[in-house]
Structures are given as C-alpha cells and as structure tokens.
C-alpha cells in the first residue's frame, strides 16, 4: 500500500511541476512586465527599466525557457520565488496570505463534504420523497448561482439580520476587524465571525455538488446484489445500508473529492475578493492585473501544491476504503 501511494504521489508531483512550469511560461508570454513603466510620467529611461526587469528576472529579452530555468533553480536552491512588482518577496507574501485562504478552504471543504455526503445518502435512501426533491432542487438552484452572487447575497442577508437586531452581530469585511486589540479569545472570536459568511458560501457550493454525486453513487450501491444478500441474511436495514452501502459509496467519492478541489479553490478565491480578504485569491488576481509574472507563478505553485496534497490524501482515503487497492 505504501508503494502504491508513493507511486501515485510521484505521479501527481510531476504533474504539479509541469503545470507550474506551464503557468510560468503562459504568464511570461501573456503578461507584459514593462507595461507599468510605460504608464509612468515622466517615463523612466530604458536602461533603468531594463535593470529593474533584470533584477526581477522577468526581462522579456531573455528567452522564456532560460528565465524558467533560473526561476526553478532559485526555487530549489534558495527556496525563493523572486520578488513582486512591489519589491516584496513572493514567498513572504504567500506566507502572510495563505493562512487566511487555507482556513477558509479547509473549514469550508470539510464541512461541505460532510454535509454533502449526509444529504446524498439521505436523498438516495428516501428517493423521490419530498425531502429528496427539496434537496435536489435546492442544489440545482445553488448550481445556477455564480459563487460571487452567493457571497454578495449572503452579505445583504447578514445586513438585514444586523439591522433587525439593531447591532452589528455578523461582521464580514476582511478576515478580521482592522485595528482590533484584546485577549487571544477576542481575536479568535473576531476571526471566527468574519469567517462565517464565506464559509457558508463555500459550504453551499461544495455540499451541492457532493450531495448530487453521493446520491447517484449511493443509488447504484443500493441496487447492488450484496445489499440484497445482506438484507436476506437478516441484517437490519440501517445496518445493511451503513455497513455495506455507505462505506462502498464513499470509494468513488474520494476520487471526486480530489477532482472537484480545483473548483473549490477557484470558488474560494472569488469569495476572498467578494469579502475583501487579503488572501491568495486576491493576490493572484492582483498579480495578473499588475503584470506581475513572479507573483502569478508563485500562486500557481501554491495551487499546484494544494492539488498535490489533496490528490494524495484522496488516494490514501481510497486505499483505506478499498482493500483491493492495498494488495
């Protein structure tokens, strides 16, 4: 089993590396790092533009592949991803911002997966009943709503709620209240409240897709012979469902989890911007707007590493659930 997981891990690692390189090349080709200097008035002399581009390692006169090679060597020898257009280290920016993003992404996807799986199983067991229909159509409505619309609608609802109570109960701008001071407990509570709305939004979108998938897998399992066998030999219905049904239905879910992770990352990036979080998603979008090649490549690496971790985890989960893989 260890060998299997190691092999899969290497496979994903190569894939992530290639994807990051591809993002670097695409960013280098598409973005024009000199554009911001041309907009300056008076325009700086060409020599100083070149010097500053050289210092960042993004001078378009050097071939893209050479630049990519320098970038990779710096990454693997000095753990440096270069500097942003603002002069900060990309690694430092990522360190400062990734905490907020990961907090949202982890909490949102875990709660979303749990709720999604439960709703899916419930829907499959009670197929065509009222509750199943309600969950089905509710998930269709969530599918039909762009992520940022969910975010803003939640903000409007929270404001109405605050107005109703007459005090500011739910705060939602930024990842914490600016300039807040107090005990550790106050700070944690403040962050938790700020986390509330983006997490609800992320849970909604992930639970909607997980519940659909889990429901259809569960329906396949419910029709299988071994469930009938389990019932025929006298196992109570709930026991047959949960011991033989849900466990098996979770196997394809572990793959789907890794597969849908990219969508979740994109979704949480949008939510970060909607709720004005200083997170990775905002960093990435600003980087593209500022023609900042190093920052774009850094965020691509970040996303690729997340993909690497989540796919490996899902392989571990798969192996743990399915004994056939282990042998």
């Amino acid at each position, binding site marked *: 089993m260890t060998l299997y997981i190691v092999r899969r891990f290497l496979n994903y690692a190569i894939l992530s590396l290639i994807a990051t390189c591809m993002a670097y090349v695409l960013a280098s080709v598409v973005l024009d790092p000199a554009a911001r200097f041309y907009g300056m008035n008076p325009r700086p002399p060409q020599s100083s533009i070149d010097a500053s581009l050289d210092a960042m390692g993004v001078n378009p006169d050097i071939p893209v592949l050479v630049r990519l090679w320098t970038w990779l060597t710096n990454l693997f020898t000095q753990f440096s991803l270069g500097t942003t257009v603002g002069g900060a280290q990309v690694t430092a920016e990522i360190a400062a911002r990734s905490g907020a993003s990961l907090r949202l992404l982890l909490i949102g996807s875990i709660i979303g997966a749990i709720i999604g799986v439960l709703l899916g199983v419930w829907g499959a067991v009670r197929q065509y009943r009222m509750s199943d229909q309600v969950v089905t159509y509710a998930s269709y409505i969530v599918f039909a709503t762009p992520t940022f*619309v969910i975010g803003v609608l939640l903000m409007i609802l929270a404001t109405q709620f605050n107005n109703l109570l007459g005090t500011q109960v739910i705060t939602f701008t930024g990842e914490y209240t600016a300039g807040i001071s107090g005990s550790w407990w106050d700070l944690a509570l403040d962050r938790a409240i700020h986390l509330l709305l983006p997490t609800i939004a992320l849970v909604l979108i992930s639970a909607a897709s997980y519940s659909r998938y889990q429901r259809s897998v569960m329906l396949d399992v419910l029709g299988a012979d071994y469930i009938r066998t389990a019932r025929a030999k006298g196992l109570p219905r709930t026991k047959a469902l949960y011991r033989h049904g849900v466990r098996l239905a979770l196997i394809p879910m572990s793959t789907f989890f890794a597969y849908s992770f990219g969508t979740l990352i994109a979704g949480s*990036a949008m939510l970060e911007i909607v709720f004005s979080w200083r997170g990775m998603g905002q960093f990435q979008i600003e980087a593209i707007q500022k023609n900042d090649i190093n920052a774009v490549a850094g965020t691509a690496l970040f*996303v690729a590493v997340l993909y690497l971790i989540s796919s490996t985890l899902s392989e571990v989960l798969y192996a743990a659930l399915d004994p056939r893989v282990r042998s």
Partner: protein
Amino acid sequence: MSVMQEEAIESPLEPERDITKTRKPLTRNGLVWLRLKRMPRFWIGISVVAFIVLWAFVGPLLYPYGITDRDPLNMGMGPTLLHWFGTNSIGQDIYAQTLSGLQKSLVIGFVAGPAATIIAAIVGSTAGYVGGWVDRIIQWFILLLLVIPAFFLFILLSPLIKGLSWVVLMFYIALFSWMIMAQVVRSQTRSLRNRDFVRAARYMGMPTRTILARHIIPNMASILIIDATLGVVSAIMSETALSYFGFGIQKPDVSLGTLLADGTAAAVTRPWLFVFPAFVLIALLFAISLVGDALRDAIDPTSGMNRD
C-alpha cells in the same frame, strides 16, 4: 352420390371485426420526445427560458428609458412604478440596464456553449479515433487543467483579449471550455471505433474525416446535445464571473457580470442594484439547467448520474 358439401366451418380464428390500427414504430427521436413531453420540469424550464429571451429582446422596446439615460430627479431610488428596478447613484435605470446586460449574456451563452461542444466533438473524436500523439497531448492537457483551475487560466490569458470587442470574448470562452467534454467524447469514440459499421466504412476506404462526420459524431449526438445545453449555463457563468472581476466585458458594454459588479459596492445599502440582476441571472441559469437535465433523462433514462 352426394358430393361432399363443403360446409362452411366457423373458423375458430375469427378475424377481428374492428381492426385496431397498429401504431407506427416509434423512432428514437420520437421516444425521446415522448419522454420529454411528460416531464413538467422540461416545460417549466423551456417556458421560462423562452420568456426570458423574449423579455430581453422585446422588453426594452416597451420601456421609456435607455441604458445611458439619466433621471436626475430620481437618483439612487428604490424600485418605483417609474423605474421598475430602481436607479443607481447617477440616475441610470436598472431595469433597462438589466435587460441590455441580459441580451449580451444570452448571446454569449447561446453561441459560446454550443461552440465549445462543437470543438469538443471534433477534437475528442479525432483524438479517440486517430490516437497517437494527438491523443496523448489532449490527455495531458486535460490533466493539467485539473491542477490549474480553468478560472485561473481564463483570467491569466485575459490580457490577450483586453480592449477587443465582446464578440472576441465569446469565442475566447468557447476556446477554453471544451476540455472536459472532449475527454468524454474521446472515450466514447474509443468504444465506437472498433464496431462493425465503423470497420466496414474503414475497409471501404472512406477517409477518416468522413468516418468521423458520418459515423462517429452522429452516434454521440445525444450526449452532445446535452452538453451544448448545459454548456450555455457554464458559458454564461464564465462570462459573468470574468466580467464581474474586470477581465471580461469592458465599459461601455453592459453585461450581467458588469452590472453585478457595479451593484456590489452598494449592495448592502441599496440592494436593488444587485438583487434584481442577480435573480434574473439565477432564474435564467436554473431554467436552462432544468431543460438540460430533462433532456439527459429523456435521452438516457438509465444514466447513473441523474436519476430523479
């Protein structure tokens, strides 16, 4: 000698007096239509879509305000009889803007979605049929897309279309949303290519292009139709998301995405700026996905992914 008289014997198999007309054998399309006809969600979906399309294109003609007209007496007003969806802070009418944005989003969706399906059909079937390096490149490409989410690719490459017209955006969206479907088409093609009728065509010396166009792609018409319908939803989603974050439609063009972006800043204090366009968008996408979903069930009632 009496000749044996032939007596009329009552046939035990008396032919039925009234012949019941046998129904014409049901064609595949007829069967699909028959199933579709019985699904309420198909009728709900299709009538909402039809209504919204009609509303988007006829509505502005019946309404006194244009998208740039300003009403200085009613700036930042909530919905009234004069301005149905209210006005923004400089007195522009939100109803007129919503309909105009809706038009653009509809055109983009209904062109880009099916266009992506066509690309997917061509690329996927070629990869599956020809195999070799074409196949391998496409496989890698799709794998890489799992690592870098499509939305990031969209915004990363958006400088390419900056400053160009919204028609370019439409094709840009189509150009980057065919990959997953191509994968499905590819695997279907792999299973079709060794079937007898395809083999016969190959041995008759038909060129590959003709085999793909006559035998492979028509055999996948059903999944392609479903994908084209649901592709409209994802194309509209991509357009609104891109425009919302400033990478898609640019001023002075209006789409639902730019409209929602404008409404966001004041969404909390003046909800009508955001809520009306948002609800129109959600209703449209929900209705199209109902139609797509009903189509999928009608075409393939045993499909595992969707049993409702």
